[in-house]
């Protein structure tokens, strides 16, 4: 297992080199010159030239790229052109918000996805099955930003029971320990803050998690159907094991293996794909911030965010593969054991 983890970690290097080249080239080729954006409407050509020199943008591209790579290894991702703040600080101040939202979304998606999928499989070809799968179809088809706006209009604009956006009431925020509001609220015993954070999390997490919930529900249904048709399920039933135990201990445990993979992949994509949800719900995360920085040609920030998301995505995949082995003891990663 250890060898496998080391091997996977080493495989990170070519992946990250590839990602770094792609993001570097895309920003240089498709983004407008950042200098006039940063210097404003009174910028003269002389000022623009001086700024470009000061920020190394007149250096040959390979030098710029090597400086970027050097920065990654030394932990210095540079300074935002626009705000003059270190990129790492900008990213770290927003990343907990995105992770908190993605985790809340994946929890909602997993809980409801597995419940709906299991009920659909157990009650195959009944009204429950149809209702579950129609819900999943709607979840897959609905654009997140549209769903977000609808949720805001219903629960905030009409029923007035949930806030329309943001991460929490600024005057009710918990003392900062980890940067995760919910966790900080629990750690500091701040009940008001926990309630406030949950109230603010429900709508964006539901909107973001809807697509993943649908995917998980479908996967659970098909996986459970396959498992429920296995001989050992029939044997368990013949032995008089209760139906609940058959589903929970025998079917779901075995059916979970592909579901765990899907959940892991969905979590990765939620981290990178929260852009629309974050914009609609004014969620102060990395997604909407990156879009702003792309529009402002803030190269160091965009490069930094893409690298961080890439690393996170690859690491999540690795963790999923390890969990995979824990869920299914038949899977071994060492050649000798195979």
């Amino acid at each position, binding site marked *: 297992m250890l060898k496998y983890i080391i091997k996977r970690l080493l495989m990170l290097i070519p992946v990250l080199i590839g990602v770094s080249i792609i993001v570097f080239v895309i920003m240089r080729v498709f983004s407008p010159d950042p200098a*006039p954006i940063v210097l404003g409407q009174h910028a003269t050509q002389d000022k623009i030239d001086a700024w470009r020199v000061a920020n190394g943008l007149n250096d040959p591209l390979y030098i710029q790229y090597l400086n970027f790579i050097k920065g990654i290894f030394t932990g210095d991702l540079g300074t935002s052109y626009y705000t003059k703040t270190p990129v790492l600080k900008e990213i770290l101040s927003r990343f907990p918000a995105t992770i908190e939202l993605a985790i809340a979304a994946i929890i909602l998606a997993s809980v409801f996805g597995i419940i709906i999928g299991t009920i659909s499989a157990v009650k195959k070809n009944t009204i429950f099955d149809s209702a579950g799968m129609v819900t999943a179809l709607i979840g897959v088809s609905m654009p997140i930003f549209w769903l977000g706006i609808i949720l805001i209009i219903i629960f*905030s604009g009409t029923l007035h029971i949930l*806030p329309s956006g943001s991460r929490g*009431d*600024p005057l009710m925020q918990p003392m900062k320990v980890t940067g995760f509001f919910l966790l900080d609220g629990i750690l500091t015993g701040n009940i008001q803050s926990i309630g406030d954070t949950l109230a603010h999390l429900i709508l964006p997490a539901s909107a973001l998690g809807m697509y993943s919930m649908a995917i998980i529900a479908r996967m659970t249904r098909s996986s459970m159907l396959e498992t429920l048709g296995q001989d050992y399920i029939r044997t368990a039933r013949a032995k008089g094991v209760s139906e609940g135990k058959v589903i*929970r201990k025998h079917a779901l445990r075995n059916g979970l293996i592909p579901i765990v993979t899907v959940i892991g992949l969905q979590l990765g994509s939620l981290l990178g794909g929260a852009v629309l949800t974050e914009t609609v719900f004014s969620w102060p995360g990395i997604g909407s911030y990156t879009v702003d920085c792309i529009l402002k040609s803030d190269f160091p920030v965009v490069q930094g965010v893409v690298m961080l998301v890439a690393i996170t995505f690859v690491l999540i995949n690795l963790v999923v593969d390890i969990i995979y082995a824990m869920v299914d003891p038949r899977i071994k990663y060492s050649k000798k054991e195979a």
Partner: protein
Amino acid sequence: MNTVKKVLAVVLAAALLCLTLTACAQGASNDPKDTLIFAQGADPRGLDPALVDDGESSKVIVNIYEGLIKYAKDSTKLEPCLAESWTVSDDGLTYTFKLRQGVKFQDGTDFNADAVKFNIERQMKGNATEDMPYADFVYGYVTKVEAKDANTVVITLKDKCTPFLYNLAMSMAAPMVSPEALKKNNNNVNEAPVGTGPYKFVRWDKEQSIVLTRNDNYWGEKAKTKNVIFRIIKDNSARVVALNNGEVDMIDGIDATVVDEITKAGNTVDQPDGMNINYMAYNTQSSICGKPEVRKALSQAINVPELVKSLYQGYATPADTILPSFVPGFSKDIKQVAYDEAASKAALAQAGVTTVHVITYSNPRPYNPATGKALAEAVQGYLSKVGVTCNIEVFDWTTYKQKVKAGDFDICFYGWTGDNGDPDNFMSLLSDKDPSMNVSRYDNAAYLDLIAKGKAAAEGADRDAIYAQLEQNQVDNSVWLPISHSKLLSAYRPVVQGYYYHVTGNIFLSGMSKTK
């Protein structure tokens, strides 16, 4: 079946817990009367007045900092602020400011002549860094700053420049920052602002909110409301829902399409004229529009009041002048070329003009919320009636600016949002050597002469007359067709008292309060 029941029970219990905690949180909030919440569409770039150039930063900055001079409540006329009075020498080169005494920065340090000197010298040539966007604009003429005594500052300019006084009232570069705070923060107080204003900085959660609290040591009338929160809500519809839902008290950055929704919810839409001009520019160097008579005939074809009414639904004022009505130098006697379809048709037929090359932008702009494309298409409709075909090319804003600079067009659409409330800031666009500013490439000796005179003349009726002459020169030569001055739309809940949105696009919150 048992399992399903158990899972359902757990889920229901969790949901119940969430609702209880949520209710608990809502019930436990602070007294809403103590907190004004203003929602804006983007995070500020920073809170150091020397290092920013965006409106979102400016709205926060004006509540924390003050300059030597400020604008009047409903115009850009100048009033004393941290300077109680000032005099200008006869040669127009020396400005002497008498400072208000007993003023302290929010960190407890004294505001005095040395602090003013420190702030100005920080942004003068040689000291200013390349990322101080307004340093040269505000202080480019300054050659020397002296602290005569603790409360007297003398500033020497290299040349006469009356707009300098207006520059000192701006929210960029001009507000006074605590020198001590600048020293502590490596010459960058973007995230640790310290000024002399009615509110002091508490916290900034990026992309989320900025919290300010009343400065109880403020030298003037203390702020009426204890706390101020600037909330960042990027999505326009979400911002409107938040207002109608009572989550925020005031919003800006709205357009005409949501006005009904806001007023139906019992809220008020505020709409002062903005410090801007939306115009159609002729390329005076193009083969077609190089002739003044052709430009005049093209202008005659367009019914500007009708166009503005249909395109902006009453949320913009048709423009006769380049200057908005509240800027000194505005003259109501100036009238644009009158709409005359028949005369236009005859003149254009005689000149043999059948097609014009038009370029425009695809996005909305502060001075043109309907987008450049919609404006160009409206103009296209009018010109088709006089036998002229418009070949329109539409570009995204960044590409568009490059196209305008390159100059391959007969007609383009542009606009300007004023910086300092001085007439020179608008009128000198047509004298600028840079074609990205002077998009018409207008080069008129009489105009250049008047611009120089206006810059040097002391404030007053004589100076105002110079700007009226400049307006008339533009009309006579039909360089632009001024279209509209866009209104600044913002909205507030009925609980807010004393609301006003300044013509510069800033919101001064210290005089506002809430009834509940």
